[in-house]
């Protein structure tokens, strides 16, 4: 993997942040469009569904607000960008630079997250105005741990999408494979409902998949709900350790197949 140093990281982030600021209105709209958890909260509380899982209204509100935050800082779209770049030959100049092009994509995502941050805060403030009883300030330790787990969630999703993106070296429409992953991600990650609410037979196998560690685990951690912190981090690291070498292997095989189409 390409050698990365502090100067490269800072410059990549600075340049991509400047680039993202050019699209600030678009990013604000994206941030607003990520309010699915609030719709789900409304459905849960209006139907008193929270009673079935022994979670108070306040804790459920905090869970969905946390899910919104985790989602804001773990959204990944690399497959679509990479597919276009690979099919049109746009990655050609980057492939012959001494830095893996995926670092550019990571920097784009992180820069977008920084740009989203103020919009996410504004949405959270509006949420607290209407749900004053849900207001809470997590202690610094928990806050830092949930930041780390959110970053791991981002890494897992980024690696999954990058592996899928590399398939476009073989099949031209890798993004259609990603759509297969979107459905389980939506239902099993905890975005629509806390995983604790799932039937026992689903829960018995869902925790060995990466999905609950994408939203449910970091959101429970941040909101102060009961969760097994050590097990959550171990599973996140386990999936990263599986996905990272897989990505490296498929990247190395894929670039051998690259034909620099369109150039």
């Amino acid at each position, binding site marked *: 993997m*390409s*050698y990365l*140093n502090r*100067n*490269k990281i*800072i*410059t*990549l982030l600075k*340049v991509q942040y*400047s*680039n993202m600021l*050019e*699209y600030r209105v678009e990013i604000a709209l994206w941030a607003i469009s990520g309010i699915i958890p609030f719709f789900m909260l409304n459905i849960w509380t209006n139907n008193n569904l929270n009673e079935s899982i022994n979670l108070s209204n306040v804790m459920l509100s905090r869970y969905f607000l946390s899910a919104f935050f985790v989602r804001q800082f773990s959204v990944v779209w690399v497959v679509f960008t990479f597919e276009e770049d690979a099919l049109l*030959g*746009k990655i*050609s*100049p*980057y*492939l*012959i*630079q*001494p*830095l893996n092009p995926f670092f550019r994509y990571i920097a784009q995502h992180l820069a977008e997250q920084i740009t989203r941050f103020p919009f996410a805060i504004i949405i959270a403030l509006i949420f607290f105005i209407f749900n004053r009883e849900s207001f809470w300030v997590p202690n610094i330790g928990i806050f830092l741990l949930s930041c780390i787990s959110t970053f791991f969630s981002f890494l897992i999703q980024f690696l999954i999408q990058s592996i899928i993106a590399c398939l476009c070296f073989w099949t031209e429409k890798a993004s259609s494979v990603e759509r297969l992953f979107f459905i389980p991600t939506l239902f099993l990650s905890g975005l629509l409902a806390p995983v604790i609410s799932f039937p026992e037979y689903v829960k018995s196998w869902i925790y060995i998949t990466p999905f609950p560690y994408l939203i449910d685990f970091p959101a429970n951690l941040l909101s102060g709900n009961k969760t097994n912190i050590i097990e959550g981090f171990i599973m996140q690291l386990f999936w990263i350790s599986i996905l990272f070498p897989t990505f490296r292997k498929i990247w190395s095989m894929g670039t*051998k197949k*690259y*034909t*620099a189409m*369109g*150039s």
Partner: protein
Amino acid sequence: MEKNIIQVEDLSKSFDISSKEPGIKGTVKHFFKRETKSIEVIKNINFQIKKGEIVGFLGANGAGKTTILKMLCGLIYPSAGNLNVTGYLPYKRRHNFLKNITLIMGQKQQLIWDLPPIESFYLNAAIYDIEKYEAKRRIKKLSDMLEIDKELFIPVRKLSLGQRMKAELLASLIHKPNILFLDEPTLGLDINAQRNLRKFLQIYNKETDATICLTSHYMKDITSLCKRVICIHEGCITYDGKLNKLLKKISPLKDILIVCKTDKDAKELSNSGFTIKSRNQKEIIISIKKELIKPSLKEILNKFDIEDLYINEPPVDEIIGNILIKGKV
């Protein structure tokens, strides 16, 4: 004796290409059963390039010029053969190799579209581990040479094609590569921009002793930059040598424009047995074999009353165009 910086032995490249018949039937057939065939676009080619040389790759569309450049810079893997560029196997893409080369494609860009080029320059400088102070110095020098110092702070999307191409060049040269692979670098540029780019490349080559491999459909790029050309036809090398020699070999004739003093002289000259290319009243263009120029001119000057005469080479575009069509040298 300069050493070879690029060595190519029995290099081949094949691509798998799927074909589809037109219409609904063809589409359905293509959906269930894809027929792919392997096409050999480069066939066992051999050549060496010395440090500091500027070599032009000539060939018609689809001849394989760009594929060769892509293999030389490590962008694509060869199917067979040996390839050595500055002591490295290009397709391994080792960092020390990548820091020594650059590829500029006329129709592809690496600059970030919505930001001023200066941002992309600093990003490239960081990627190539160039200190900020040194990067500033190089950007200043190159932007002066390319005359784009005023455009450095304007978003790329607002620059003209020529300005963008110059900025692309600067972004590709900031790490001082020893080998430049240029794939149609003047594509779409106006005549002045083309001339400036060629001038810049000449200066860059002189100052840094960089090796330049170039493909272009603009013959002026080839004739003003390259002493040596490699002609490619259907994946094979049909000529590898000096451009002058090629032109002599392909076109052994010279055009002589003769302006006669009277119509009578012009008429007599037209009927005197020389090959007449065209005649316009007192002006006649005749084609003469290069080795017969001296005796023929002597004869003309003795026999006819001549006002003026000019000896011209046939247009290079015309000669090279013929090579591209026929593929034979």
